[in-house]
């Protein structure tokens, strides 16, 4: 009578129900966490500047540095850094923040993709499906081509571009209400048009260096990220991840289809728009920090769903661990595979993502439906 025990177990009122955390979820979180730690170790220990692994980690756990409020003020609020040795400087201002940005970008993209897959009821939806990537991409190209002087503001322009383009997609899809299909189609339309303009702008680029930096934004790169990116992405990550966790039940009800959700008393359009905004903000923050990293927001929720099922309480929690693991592993490859040259991390995620999808396509019969 295992099922009966489970039922009576729930009768202990007052305690929060945690029985939804099952073995598969714990396993997934454990494995992702181990992978994240391993990749983090590699990222902090190795690099173009040679230092021993032990030295690097002695610096990470340097208590004098860790307990100095001045350092944290400098990292979190962006003040003046205290005097650091060259090794400490490299570890603390280049390698550590890059790992942190990778973690936050991974969380944001995975959670955002998870939300969009529920909103569009399509397993193949990504954070970029409702126009974020095309809008951000166009904003980046416009800045690079016409407003070269404003290059430091690229992150701001990229996220604003993404959000504007998302609103455009929503407006196009709206006809007395939206539907998943209309939203996806509007996303494709906007993506096609903006993508063409963006590619046209490439021909107006004068020198190869600008073209390369534009390309790095388009493919997504963590090269050169520091505490400034951590400061930028952290608050948005906290907000969007928090909202994604508390709205998991809304996402679950949305998965039952609009008709059912609406007859259960959900204001479907309002909830759908609200959730989309959360997902767009998460995606835009990660675009601003690292450019358009592809595939992560698409495959992470997908992978997690295959292991823990489609309950969004479990899925969102799983995404929070698998997303960072994937980005960090990919970034390790991006940084070290062709060392001292670095490739954009988006290239590596694409190289991992493609074959994973091939595997899924071979294994599963009905892909696409949640």
């Amino acid at each position, binding site marked *: 009578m295992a099922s009966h025990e489970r039922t009576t177990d729930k*009768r202990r009122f007052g305690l929060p129900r945690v029985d939804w955390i099952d073995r598969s979820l714990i396993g997934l979180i454990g494995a992702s966490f181990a992978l994240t730690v391993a990749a983090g170790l590699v990222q902090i220990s190795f690099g173009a500047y040679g230092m021993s692994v032990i030295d690097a980690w002695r610096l990470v756990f340097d208590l004098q540095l860790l307990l100095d409020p001045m350092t944290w003020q400098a990292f979190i609020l962006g003040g003046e850094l205290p005097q650091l040795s060259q090794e400490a400087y490299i570890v603390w201002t280049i390698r550590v923040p890059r790992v942190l940005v990778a973690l936050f970008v991974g969380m944001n993209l995975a959670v955002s993709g998870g939300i969009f897959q529920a909103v569009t009821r399509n397993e193949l939806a990504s954070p970029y499906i409702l126009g974020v990537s095309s809008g951000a991409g166009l904003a980046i190209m416009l800045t690079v081509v016409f407003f070269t002087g404003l290059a430091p503001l690229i992150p701001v322009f990229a996220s604003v571009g993404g959000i504007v383009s998302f609103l455009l997609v929503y407006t196009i899809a709206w006809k007395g209400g939206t539907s998943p299909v209309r939203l996806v189609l509007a996303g494709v339309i906007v993506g096609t048009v903006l993508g063409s303009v963006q590619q046209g702008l490439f021909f107006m680029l004068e020198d190869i260096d600008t073209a390369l930096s534009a390309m790095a934004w388009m493919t997504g790169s963590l090269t050169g990220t520091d505490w400034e990116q951590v400061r930028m992405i952290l608050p948005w990550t906290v907000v969007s991840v928090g909202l994604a966790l508390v709205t998991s039940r809304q996402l679950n*009800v949305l998965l*039952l289809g609009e008709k059912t959700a*609406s*007859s*259960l*008393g959900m204001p479907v359009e309002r909830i759908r728009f609200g959730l989309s905004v959360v997902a767009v903000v998460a995606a835009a923050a990660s675009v601003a920090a690292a450019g358009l990293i592809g595939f992560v927001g698409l495959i992470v929720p997908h992978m997690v*769903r295959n292991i823990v099922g*489609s*309950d969004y309480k479990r899925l969102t929690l799983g995404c929070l661990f698998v997303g960072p693991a994937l980005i960090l592993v990919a970034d390790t490859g991006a940084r070290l595979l062709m060392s001292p040259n670095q490739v954009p991390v988006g290239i590596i995620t694409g190289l991992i993502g493609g074959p994973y999808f091939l595997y899924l396509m071979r294994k599963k019969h009905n892909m696409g439906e949640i």
Partner: protein
Amino acid sequence: MSKGTHPAPGTDATEAAEASEPSRPVDSDSNDSDSITGQELVLSYSSSEEPVIDDESITARSGAVTALVGPNGSGKSTLLKGMADQLTPDHGSVILQGRDVHSYDTKELAQKLGLLSQESVAPDSITVEDLVYHGRYPHRGFFESVSAEDERAVDRALTLAGCEHLRDREVGQLSGGQKQLAWIAMVIAQDTDILLLDEPTTFLDLHHQLEVMEIIDTLRNKSDITIIVVLHDIQQAARIADKMIALKSGEVRARGTPEEIVTKKLLAEVFDVEAKVQVTDRGPRIEPLSPLNSMDN
């Protein structure tokens, strides 16, 4: 109730017929507390010019089962959607407990009125229990967790729908019939005064069809819930319903008790079939003979 195991609504229908009024029940029922009335409804979809339902009024009496019957495309499901405020009428209104349904907040309405649509979809990996808990959606705040009342309602719904044993199974592993029972449990857990069911027996095997009919019967007997059910099968409707409403081409052609409605003449007029109708103690029995060419009428 003596007929807990065998549904024999024929007798019920007779009792109901005696208790209720004969012909136009629209006005006389509207003072009933849990009745729901659609007044002069004009319903249409944005994709077509012509309204599907053009100026019809119906009432479901409190605590009774009202069946909507009619051929394919007669507008039964559309009418049900209109009654559930899932389709805004171009004209007319639906009155629930003395108020226009449109004036209710979406959650408030969902606490009073439940609707089970046709061919509902759920992710394969969701358990029956979790699905039924979603029925509590209108009773829970945005951030609220499960209350003792939610648990009681879910347990009751699982028992009433006869799927207590499926509780921990994943929906994807269930047969079509078992899935439908789980969905019915979900809408029962919603704990509403009015329940609207859109073709709950279509696509089910005979066993599950009877099981669904039995659940409807139990709901009527054990609670004072008001039910409107769209049924494809007029024989089933005649067995279960206290009152029937027959539609054709978006028009109400007849309304009354099963005995009044199920006649040779109506079957020919509304369903375009020639049939023999036999009155038995389980209500009218229909033996369909041959399709009629509608031009003959």
